[in-house]
């Protein structure tokens, strides 16, 4: 459970990047894009971010049912905190 706040912070970190890059992209594409294009681009941004987050997020959850130990999960958390500066 100690890792729960890290999940929240990592999600927020990725979402900031996603939204910033998406707006940059929409800015370049101009106002004359179709709803279909708008949705495809939004899905693209979510698809990439979600698939990039999947591994780290999974390894922040330690449910005791597999061989991931608590200490390994905490090490993952510390590494993610460092690598994404999540503590500040």
């Amino acid at each position, binding site marked *: *459970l100690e890792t*729960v*706040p890290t*999940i*929240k912070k990592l*999600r*927020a970190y990725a979402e900031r990047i996603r939204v910033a890059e998406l707006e940059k992209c929409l800015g370049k594409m101009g106002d004359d894009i179709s709803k279909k294009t708008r949705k495809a681009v939004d*899905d693209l941004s*979510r*698809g990439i971010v*979600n*698939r990039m*987050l*999947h591994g780290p*997020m*999974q390894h922040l*959850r330690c*449910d005791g049912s597999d061989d991931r130990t608590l200490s390994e999960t905490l090490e993952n958390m510390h590494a993610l905190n460092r690598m994404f500066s999540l503590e500040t």
Partner: protein
Amino acid sequence: PKKQELISKLKSGKNFLRNQQPDKAFTEFKIALELAQNIKDPIEEKKAARGLGASLQRQGKYRDAVKYHSMVLSISEREGEDSGSTEAFGAIADCYTELGDLEKAGQYYDKYIARLEKD
């Protein structure tokens, strides 16, 4: 015409959110939600519910935010169409984290994580 009004309310709600005016955003999304329910457009209904949840979150009203994010999930279930559900699970978990209920937050994050590799 109603659909047009709905789209424009969703858009202005988003703009208020972006400009850090979550109370004004809430009002816009509230109207959008009613419009979407009127014309029975579940996709836009979910967007409005999601916007309401986000507006409340920004105001620190996490319990109420959970209600609207949960509405997204129940619309998904009702319609058998699950766009927006991954994000709703994540947002609900974020709210429980803020409320200090890490147990419940963890449960919702598990559902969120299970969906991250799907579309």
